[in-house]
Structures are given as C-alpha cells and as structure tokens.
C-alpha cells in the first residue's frame, strides 16, 4: 500500500537521522494505568493549551495601555465615556471582532477550569498518597504551579482595566503597602508610582503573556517528564503491585483516549462560553477610583484570600513610629501560607514520622490512611470556610441573614470546622476499614437464607471476588517504629530518645492508626463463621465448602 510506503519513507528518513526506532517503539508501548481520577491532571494540561491558543488570539487586538481615550465603538451605552485603551480594546474584541467575545469567554472559563482542575488533581494526589516517594518533587512542582496559576489568573483578569478588576488591583496595592519595611517601596515599584499610575497594565501584561506562562510551561514540562520517567501510579487491583504498571499501551489506546479528552475539554469550555456569560466587563464599566459596586467578587480561586481578608479582626499596632497592619498582611499571607506550606512539608513530615523511606507506586485508598485523609479534609474545610467567607455578602443576601453574622460564623468556623472535619473524617475512614474487614472475614451477603439440618437459619455469604480481594487487602506496609520494637525497659534507639523522639512516637501512633486486616485475609469463606472449613485459601478458590461457590452465585442470579 502506498500509505504504508510513505510512512516507511518518513520513518526511515527520521530514523537515519535520529535513531528513533528503538526508543520510540518502547514509547508506543508505554503502559498507562486507567482510572477516572487520573483524568483530572489531563484537564489541567488541556485547559492550559486552550489558554495558550485563545490567549494568543486575544493579543492580536488587545492594547495593554492606560492611555485615556474616548470610546466610539459599537457598544452604544459606553460611547463618549473616558476609559483606558486597555478597556476600549477589550470592548473592541467583544463587540467588533468576530469570535472575539467567544474567545474571551473561553479564555476566562479555561482559566477557571485550569485552577479548579489543579485543586481537584492535588486533592486526588493527596488522598491516594501519590505524592509519596519518589514523587515528592512533582508534588512540590504542583504547588508552585498552583501559586503561579493564582498570580497568572489575577494578572490576567486585571488586564481589561474594568471597574471590578481595578478594585482587585487596588486591593493588591493595599496588601503590598501593608508589608512591614518594604511594602510601600514594593507598591511604588510595581505600580510605577502612586496608584493607579500608567504602568501597571503594561507590566502585568508582559508578566501575564510571557513570564508566568513561560514558567508554567517549563514546570509543566518537567512535571510531565517526571511523571513519564517515574511511570504513573496505579490504583490497587488484581495483578497490580508496587513493582509493576498495569494498563493499556500509549499507542493506540491512551493516545486516542487522551485526544478525545482534549476534545471534550474544549467542547465543555465552548459550551460554557456560549451559554454562560462570564466577566461581562461592558456591564462593569471602565475603572475609576471613586466607584465600586456591591457584591464585588474576585474569580473563585482568589476567594479564599478575599474571605481571609474579610474575616480577620481589625488588629493594628503603631510601634516604634511604624504601622504594623496585622489586619492586612497576616490574613493575606498566613492562611494560604498554612495550606501551601503545609502541603509542601507534609510528604517529608510523614516520612519522618513513619520512618517509611520506601517507594510507593500503588496508591492508597483514602480510608486506608485515616489520619492523612482526615488532615486533607480538615485542610479543605479550612480553605472552604475562607472561600465561603469571600462571598459572605452574597450568602447573607441569599439566606437573608445579617452580613456581620456570616463573618462571625466564619471567624468561629475557621477554627472549629477543620477540627470537627478531622474527627469526623477519621471516624468515617476507620468505619469503612471495619466494613472492609467484615467483608474479608465474613464474605459478601447474598440475601439467601438457608436452614441448617439442626433448624438454625443462616444467611449465605459468598467470598469476595479476586478483584475486590486485591482492592480490600491492599495496604501500604509501614515499618514499625524503632522504639516500639525495643522491649519494655530497654533503652530506646538513638533518634527515639529525648523530646523529639517522644513527639515522633506519639505522631507515629496517630498517623498509623488503622483497623488491621484479618489475620489471614483468606477470602470470604462462605457461611457465617466457617473459617475453619475453608482452610484460609489465599485466593479463595477451590477449597470452598460445597454450596458456597458457584451454587450461591447461581442462586443470586435468580433473585
């Protein structure tokens, strides 16, 4: 066939020059494990690509200039209004460039999706323990990418110089000014003088279209390269171990699936942009420092910062002739610092506590790491309270309660809710573990009631199948704490002595709290407590007593 010959020709040409046949062949067969949650990371990548494509389109018309102009374009309500060139050119893109509004809206929705997908992906990675050795570096890169994404988004939506985003810049300036010692200087250098000046939009523009996307692109590349090099983690399942990767090969399966996923992401964003209006800057009007509307909200990923600023008490000192604006710089830096810093430290802290320095490629089920899961939920709750407080005026309005009450609720919930979330989540995880243990010990209830010769009624159970068995029994083995191995009265080994050792021992007990698996996790064993009759076969096949195996399954089919 001529296609085949043409392909062979191209292949030969490339291989003669690049020696690709061997490496690329292996690449084509690279195995990708499958799980729906692994797609979250792909959403990030694809929304980033869509951001680059639509963003490039927007730069063809956008003028990053704060020069005053009088608007004469197609949007009649604003004709004759004084505004910056940046705002006028954004109106121009929206009303006078075909497809301009669509691209603007896809761009904005894609930015929100990008951040939302980053959060979802981070949550997935955290709860499955996929950040553990050897993937700590990628976890840290992810945190940096999240932070960069926040700045990229903030700078991006500030560019149109509309009333809403101008207020965002004003707040940015206020936060910078509040920083001790350097604050005023930083603000003056960033804005090129007093607020708003004429420099900030061009400066944000170059950061938004070149510097930060360049950094994101570089880090995404490293992130993907490391993922590729270390191979993807996998969910527990039959035949999946810590030393293999089970899945379908890259070519053609993964390539086709991921291609489809790109189309779906683009389709979802196009649908959102068509039917759900976002950032209608023509309704907000151009920025002016005197006006502001009620219900002003930043984009969702800045909501936690906004909420933090809203709920923090009015604490401020004048000491040594200087103003310490704790009411600004503490809420601006501390809560997100706790979340990002905590996330960055956690993998290493966990390693120190558990002493577990081994590689983990098989993901944990969240219930099997109750403390980690509880901590994660507590952090999400912490973030969620701040985030909700960022929209407290909207909440107060819709629920018809006092605005101040919402703030007070947030002030209390900020401290209490994470603790409650921790306790509840840990209980739920341990409960789920007990349920798993019950399944392993007693098998799956079939709903079939049998009468024994003695007259006793029992419910038939059947053993869990092999796939479920592999999932249920999958646990990360943790090394015992050195001092726990030492017998009573012996001197604990070095590293476990002193206050730090004591702390570690206590934390170890908290972190490793778990419901143990049954002694022999022999498969479910038929009737009730008939463990002795089964002989605890590892794979639960063959040695089941009559009437518990296929017969029972047949019985289930009839129901």
């Amino acid at each position, binding site marked *: 066939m001529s296609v085949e010959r043409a392909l062979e020709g191209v292949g030969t040409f490339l291989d003669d020059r690049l020696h690709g046949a061997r490496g690329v062949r*292996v690449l084509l067969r690279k195995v990708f494990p499958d799980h729906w949650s692994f797609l979250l990371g792909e959403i990030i990548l694809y929304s980033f690509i869509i951001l680059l494509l639509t963003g490039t389109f927007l730069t063809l018309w956008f003028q990053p200039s704060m020069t005053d102009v009088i608007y004469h374009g197609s949007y009649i309500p604003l004709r004759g209004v004084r505004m910056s060139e940046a705002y006028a050119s954004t109106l121009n893109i929206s009303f006078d460039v075909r497809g301009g509004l669509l691209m603007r809206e896809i761009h904005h929705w894609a930015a929100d999706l990008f951040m939302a997908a980053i959060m979802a992906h981070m949550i997935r990675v955290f709860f499955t323990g996929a950040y553990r050795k050897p993937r700590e570096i990628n976890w840290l890169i992810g945190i940096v990418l999240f932070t960069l994404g926040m700045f990229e988004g903030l700078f991006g939506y500030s560019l149109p110089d509309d009333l809403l985003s101008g207020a965002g810049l004003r707040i940015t300036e206020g936060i910078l000014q509040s920083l001790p010692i350097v604050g005023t200087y930083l603000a003056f250098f960033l804005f090129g003088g007093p607020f708003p000046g004429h420099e900030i939009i061009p400066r944000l523009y170059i950061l938004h279209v070149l510097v930060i996307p360049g950094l994101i692109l570089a880090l995404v590349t490293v992130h993907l390269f490391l993922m590729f090099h270390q191979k993807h983690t996998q969910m527990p399942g039959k035949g999946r171990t810590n030393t293999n990767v089970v899945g379908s090969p890259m070519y053609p399966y993964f390539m086709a699936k991921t291609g489809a996923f790109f189309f779906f992401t683009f389709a979802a964003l196009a649908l959102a942009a068509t039917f759900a209006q976002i950032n209608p800057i023509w309704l907000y009007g151009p920025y002016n420092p005197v006006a502001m509307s009620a219900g002003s909200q930043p984009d969702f990923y800045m909501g936690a910062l906004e909420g933090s600023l809203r709920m923090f008490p009015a604490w401020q000192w004048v000491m040594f002739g200087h103003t310490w604006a704790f009411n600004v710089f503490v809420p601006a830096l501390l809560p997100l610092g706790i979340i990002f810093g905590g996330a960055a430290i956690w993998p290493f802290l966990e390693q120190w506590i558990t002493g577990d320095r081994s590689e983990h490629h098989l993901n944990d089920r969240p219930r099997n790491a109750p403390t980690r899961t509880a901590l994660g939920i507590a952090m999400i709750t912490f973030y969620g309270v701040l985030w909700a407080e960022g929209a407290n005026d909207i909440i107060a309005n819709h629920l018809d309660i006092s605005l101040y009450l919402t703030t007070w609720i947030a002030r209390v919930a900020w401290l209490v809710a994470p603790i409650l979330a921790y306790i509840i989540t840990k209980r739920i995880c341990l409960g789920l573990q007990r349920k798993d243990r019950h399944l392993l010990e007693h098998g799956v209830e079939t709903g079939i009631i049998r009468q024994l010769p003695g007259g006793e009624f029992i419910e038939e159970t059947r053993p869990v199948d092999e796939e479920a068995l592999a999932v249920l029994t999958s646990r990360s083995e943790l090394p015992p704490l050195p001092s726990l191995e030492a017998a009573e009265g012996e001197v604990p080994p070095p590293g476990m002595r002193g206050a730090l050792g004591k702390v570690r021992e206590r934390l170890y007990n908290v972190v490793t709290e778990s419901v143990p698996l049954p002694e022999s996790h022999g498969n479910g064993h038929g009737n009730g407590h008939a463990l002795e009759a089964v002989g605890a076969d590892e794979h639960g096949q063959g040695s089941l007593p009559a009437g518990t195996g296929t017969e029972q399954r047949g019985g289930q089919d009839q129901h």
Partner: protein
Amino acid sequence: MSDTNSPGQPDSGNSGELSWPEYLTGGESRGAVPPGAQAAEPEGHAAPHRVIGTPPPAVARKLLAADGGGISRETVRELPAEPDDPRRAKRVEKLVAACFLVAGLAGLAFMVFYGTIGVGSITNVLHSNLALGGSMALMFLLLGIGTVLWVRHLMPTVELAEDRHPMAATPQERAAFKETFQEGAEASQFVKRPIIRRSLIAATIPMAVAPIFLLRDMGPLPGTSLDTTVWRKGLRLLVYGTGRPISAAEFNSPGALISVGPEGYLDNDNAMAKAAVSLIKFRPGELVYGPPARPGGPSVRDKVVPNWTVDNIVAYSKICTHLGCPAALYEQTTHRILCPCHQSTFLATEGAKVIFGPATRPLPQLPIGVDSEGYLIATGPFNEPVGPSFWERS
C-alpha cells in the same frame, strides 16, 4: 526517551535472561549495559518484563519464558487486531463515522456563521456568539464522542503489565558516577586552585546583584507622597459625574450621599485615588460632635469635628482605610458607610468610626466651608493620611 524500561538503560539489564524489549532486538542492547550494573542486578525475574494481562497472564509468561531470546517476531502479538465483538463493531463503526461526519459539518457551519453573521451591535454579537460557540462546541463534542466510541467498542480490550524498577541507581552506578564527577572536578583544577575558585565566587556576587539595580527606575520612591492628597484650602468640591460645584443650599435633602472631588482633579485618577470624598447631609441633631479642632492639632477620633462641617454636611474620605476600595455603600437609616470589598463598616454620625470589619481607622474627615459664592470648599487638607495603612504611617 525517558522510559526506564527502554533497552540499553542500565536498570532494564537483568542478568541471566533477556527482558521483553530486548528479545525483539536480538539482545544487542546488552552491550550498552555497563558491566558493573549487570553483575549487580539480582538474579530472578523468571518472567519477562512484559506479559499480556488478558487473556490469562500465565499463558503468555510460559510462552515467552520457554522461547527466550530465540523467539521470532511473528509469534508474539501483544495487541490483538480483532475487536472483541465483531457484530457490534460493525454497528459502532457506522456510529463513529456519523459522529465524525457531523463534527465536520459543524466545523463547516462555524466557518459559514463566521462569514454570514456580523458583529458590531449587542444583538449581532449575541447571535454570532451563539452560532460560533454552538457549532464549535458541537464539533469538539462529536469528535470526542466518536473517538471514545471507537476506543471502547472497536479497539480490542487489552491490558499490559510493565515492570517497575527502583528509581535509585545501583551502588556500582553511583560509585561510577561519583568517580566520573570527581575526575572532572579534579581535571578542572577547581578544587586544587582556590584562588580561581574564590575569585570566581567573588565575581558572581556582583553579577547577581547588578540586575536588581536595573529595577530601581521602575518607580519613584514613595517619600511622603502617601501622607497627603491634593486637597488644600480654597479648592471647591465638585460633584463627581457632573463636574459642577455644589452649594450647601442645593445639597439639602437629609440622608443623601454624593461623591465629590477637588476642583481641577476630577479626571486625574492618581489624584482621585486618594482625594475622593463622600459628602453626606444629616438632619439636625444626628451628628455626634467632638471638640473643635485646633489648627494643626489632631482631631478627636470617633466624633465629628464641628468646625469642619457646614450646616450638618460632613465630608469624609471615600477611600477605605482597610485596602483602599471606595467605601461606596451608604445606608441612610442607620448612617452606616460600608465598603463593598471587605465590609468594613463606618458610622457616619460619629466621625465615621469603625463599627465592624477589618478596617482599623475611621475615614478621615475633610474640613469644609463655604466660599463667597456659597459653594462648598475645602478649608484645609486632610489632617492625616487617607486610605490603607502603610509602614511609614505613624
């Protein structure tokens, strides 16, 4: 390529038998494995690196292990070429093709809509956005659906297993790396000749610091510019929006709030960002007065300065003392000024003192009076910096 399983990379070089990728290349890649690495690898791995997961792995493993390196290309086929259910495959084939065809049509429609629906008015933009966005979404959606149907129902189900190897290199490899690194360091003389080393380090410090100097001209130094606004004695208060001066007689409905700015600066955003003022008219008896201000002296907090008002009209800075947003919302009945950004709330009758929210200071009061023509004027500048806190503020 980065795949650690690729032949020729040390960690795939198990001794004793050929791993899966190698038997196809006739084992030639073993030459690329450093001798030390091979010797260090533990024995074991009776199974080859890759096996077919379904159908049962045991079969495939046996087949590969029996043939070892002598196996020929034709006998092993990891990916089956026939779909699992040929009859359904035929149906799905048509469905996939239909998806792709309609996707193509949607793409054509996009171009037609681009050409036929103009923009330039709100209605046109609305139609254009619906048509372009809808056709674009349909195109991508059908491409995605078609591809997924194709993968799920036409491509045979297959699951492969690939071995993982520890990320860490073997001790031998590490030792070899260390040796190479040290040889390089020694050959460079960097260690042996400290004067070169130290002078190089000394030179890099200015190199790193110099670019920071370049940033100096990004903005002027703040100086005392944050302490003052453009307000000064005699400037008229102009209504923001109309630009007209206002007299106390005109501004006579109690409960009203208007934004005003200094004469000559209404279109100056830099000036207005600090000088914007809210002018509020009260009923007699509503205001809680403190002692009159002495020239140059500090005003009393949480009280209205009586000699800075005109006929129950008070002027407060509009710039929120929390983060600088315009404190633009005013509730007439409770006399509360609310900043919509972070909900700092100021009580207008009592010197705009903070009654809720994160702001720490009242909105400064502007001294106002009346000029010879009866228009409201400033009788002096603000007596403290307006807007958010900053380090140098005392």
